[in-house]
């Protein structure tokens, strides 16, 4: 345990905290407090999560029976493009880093704020500008899919420029956040917070920030090239002018594969924080878990062409990319083994954050093992662009990143709001999400096995039963999120149950200050003198 402990809990009356020390709309819009910026991000991206989710439900409704139901093919194509583009660029890429990362990073390393607070606010407004551009594209809908593949995107509607322009701008927001976090972690750790004492969430955020800073510029360049191609006809991707459409795919996936780890690595960090607290055990193999994050970040840069095994790349490069892709499986497996081992001989309480963590492990086992099929060269030839890929992707991103975010929201809710949510309602929401999610996407694996291609407005009658199951699941899943949002918003704004500063008796730094934290986080700069996750009674040979 650190030598710092909260004193403000026992102060008289309502203690000042980051939520009430300043009031008024200007105090939010111009805040440079990382906690307030984190909350602003949270509300903004959650709004887009709802929009993207409604698009998904509309898609599932149309697909619930073969043939045209209530959409035209063009409307369907616009909807799946919006679902993908909104969920990726406006929701899950900012996702955990911009919300929970912003809120927690300085608290976890004992700092008053991030290294560049004004830059942090700029990131948020750059994001808002990008989001507005994306919304403008809705007026002349875009139908390219979120991947904007050339040459289709070169002669599709003009909204392509708005949406790719939006993704370009949003990229800067991501880069600035990444830079800010890297400098913060290097320079602002409190006394005694060695690298080997950083919480795994900080390690995961660090690995994420490296990818954000190094990979995002590439997609920025790619999208600018695409816009230049459309506006000036430079002929780099357009085969009619001697360009190479496959080159676009290389550029695009060079970013868009690593970006998957931007989405999911922070969720790994969240799970690594939750399991020790609710097991009363140190995180098993802490160092391996941290190295695994870095290994995933590095190897993740070298596997992009596994999205292109049937695109006409040479057999030699296909073989290379298949082998390297298996390299991502190993560190991911190591993490799962360590999480589960942490529970061994623990004192386990199954509160909502722990339920989400366990659901995460189950869902991520499916996400990971189905990734093995897709890494296997011959098998991927069959599965490429089928529903198997759709299901695999949603298991990693919804089952991984989104469940991670929802787990984090429940886990740190008392710290962020100073309130407690209704535990039964939260478990109810968890149940619906877990059952609904699996019912949505397990049938889609079967569809993929049967050969059903993705991005299909209509399908052969043989695929109908699985589509029906999937649609039912999607609505249960959506209902689950509704329960979660209602429960958390109710508790935050109308709830009467005050949270203590450390409701879970955690040893991490962020729980040692009051709930909600004061404006500058700690009354005095804390000093760390112990390993992270120092739970339980020391045993012989328990060290590394």
């Amino acid at each position, binding site marked *: 345990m650190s030598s710092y402990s909260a004193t403000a809990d026992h102060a008289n009356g309502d203690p000042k905290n980051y939520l009430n020390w300043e009031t008024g709309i200007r105090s939010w819009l111009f805040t440079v407090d990382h906690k307030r910026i984190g909350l602003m991000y949270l509300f903004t991206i959650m709004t887009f999560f709802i929009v993207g989710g409604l698009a998904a439900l509309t898609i599932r409704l149309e697909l619930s029976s073969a043939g045209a139901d209530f959409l035209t093919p063009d409307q369907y194509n616009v909807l799946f493009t919006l679902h993908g583009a909104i969920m990726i660029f406006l929701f899950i890429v900012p996702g955990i880093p911009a919300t929970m990362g912003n809120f927690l990073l300085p608290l976890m390393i004992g700092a008053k704020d991030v290294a560049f607070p004004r830059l942090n606010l700029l990131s948020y407004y750059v994001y808002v500008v990008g989001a507005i551009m994306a919304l403008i594209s809705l007026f002349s809908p875009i139908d390219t899919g979120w991947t904007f593949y050339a040459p289709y995107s070169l002669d599709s509607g003009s909204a392509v420029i708005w949406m790719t322009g939006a993704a370009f701008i949003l990229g800067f927001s991501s880069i600035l956040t990444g830079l800010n976090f890297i400098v913060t972690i290097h320079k602002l750790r409190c006394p005694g917070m060695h690298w080997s004492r950083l919480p795994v969430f900080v390690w995961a955020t660090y690995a994420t920030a490296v990818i954000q800073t190094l990979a995002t510029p590439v997609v920025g360049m790619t999208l600018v090239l695409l816009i230049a191609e459309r506006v000036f006809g430079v002929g780099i991707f357009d085969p009619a002018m001697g360009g190479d459409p496959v080159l676009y795919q290389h550029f695009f996936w060079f970013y868009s594969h690593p970006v998957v780890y931007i989405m999911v690595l922070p969720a790994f960090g969240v799970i690594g924080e939750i399991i020790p607290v609710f097991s009363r055990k140190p995180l098993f*193999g802490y160092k391996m878990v941290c190295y695994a994050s870095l290994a995933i970040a590095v190897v993740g840069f070298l596997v992009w062409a596994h999205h292109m095994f049937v695109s006409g790349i040479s*057999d030699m490069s296909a073989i290379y990319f298949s082998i390297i892709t298996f390299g991502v499986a190993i560190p991911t497996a190591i993490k799962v083994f360590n999480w*589960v081992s942490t529970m061994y001989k623990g004192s386990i309480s199954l509160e909502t954050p722990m339920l989400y963590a366990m659901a995460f*492990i189950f869902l991520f086992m499916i996400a990971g093992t189905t990734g093995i099929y897709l890494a296997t060269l011959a098998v991927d030839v069959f599965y490429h662009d089928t529903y198997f890929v759709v299901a695999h992707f949603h298991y990693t991103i919804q089952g991984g990143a989104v469940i991670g975010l929802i787990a984090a929201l429940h886990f740190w809710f008392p710290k962020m709001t100073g309130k407690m949510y209704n535990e039964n309602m939260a478990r109810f929401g968890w149940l619906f999400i877990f059952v609904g999610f699996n019912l949505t996407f397990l049938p889609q694996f079967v569809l993929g096995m*049967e050969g059903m*291609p993705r991005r299909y407005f209509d399908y052969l009658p043989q695929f109908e039963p699985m589509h029906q199951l999937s649609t039912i699941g999607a609505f249960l899943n959506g209902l689950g999120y509704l329960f979660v949002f209602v429960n958390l918003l109710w508790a935050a704004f109308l709830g009467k149950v005050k949270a203590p500063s450390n409701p879970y008796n955690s040893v991490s730094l962020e729980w040692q200050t009051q709930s909600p934290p004061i404006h500058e986080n700690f009354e005095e700069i804390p000093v760390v003198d112990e390993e992270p996750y120092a739970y339980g009674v020391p045993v012989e040979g*328990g060290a590394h």
Partner: protein
Amino acid sequence: MFRYLPEQGSEIAPRLDWIHNWITDLSVFFTIAICGAMIYFAIRYRKQGGVDHETPRIEGSNFLEIVWTVVPTIICIWVAYYGIVIYNEMVDVKEDPEKEFVLINAQGYRWAWDFQYQNGKTTTNEIVVPVGRPTKIILTSRDVIHSFFIPVMRVKKDAVPGAYSHVVFTPVRTGEYPAFCTEYCGTNHSSMLANVRVVSEAEFQRWKNDRSDELSKLAMSPVDLGRSLYVDKGCNACHSLDGSAVVGPTFLNLFGSERKFTDGTTTVADENYIRESILYPASKISAGYQNLMPAFEGQISDNEIQGLIEFIRTIDGSQPVPEPVAAEEEDVDLSSLTPVERGERLYREKICFTCHSLDGSALVGPSFKDLYGRKGKFTDGQEYVADDDYIRGSILEPGSEIVEGYVNAMPPYQGQLSDEQIDDLIAFIQSVSNGD
């Protein structure tokens, strides 16, 4: 566990399915083992009575870390190795003198596939290949990227504009299988389907060398082309040449006449109007008629449209209407065929198919699929059972009883079909009602 892959239609399929099923078994095993351990721990070490019990501060185990790094690594290397070996078998099919490649050039375009065989035979959305001989399809695209995927053959490759790629496979059984476009290409991406028909070598040769159809059309004048399309595409089922109103307006004196539409507007039937009516029939509906005609967008070439326009232009009553000639009949001894086969020929010759589908979809009339023996209601509320007598009556005098949900659109065949022919048709309808 979890064996859902489609039928194994090619030589490579069992190989691919073998490694695929190994991955499934390993995945299921590890998922159950790890999640089983997790659930076991959660129950076995559950906090009792709301009070934490003492826990040991176990920080890790180098031995275990090595085990769970090395074991997955070995498994991954094994799987990756066979993934590559089988991929090489898949792409590296050798041609030997006994088994020459069937070479097909394929061009994808929004939203269909054109195929051309080495002897010049061309098809759209259909390939016929022989069983037991490797087929190599060389792919390219005329517009955006498409992808050619035959699930039963386990092959897939993108068709990229400005570049060539190929798939190669050796079919092992006869049958008809779908081929999908798997690279998103816009509005009708999901209906960009091709039909792969695997037949015996002899039948393949006969099919490939029978080019009468294309050649005769190439040599035809536009009017003759239009006249043959009028029959082939089934226009004659709904549009008469003698002025009688059937399901749709007659073609007699259509060209140049003023058309009235259901919304009250009018237009003169010129080339543009006819073209629009063929491609997008729903855009203008002639007064007194219903919106029943299927759209021919993407199913008919510019050349063919011109042929039809020229043909319709000639139907002005100034000369006797030439009897439309059906495609040249091959000499077949009808008595050597089964009643069902003869019925199927009639189904095509008499163009029943334009209004009665075989796949259950409702067109102008009820589908033949599962028709035989079906119970239903007529528009006057009376019930019927689709037995021999009912079908016979429906063919000879269709106007006497109309099935609920449909209109009286079918011409009577009284005096045009022999009793044997009607029996054949009944046998055929019965055959598409049994089994699947």
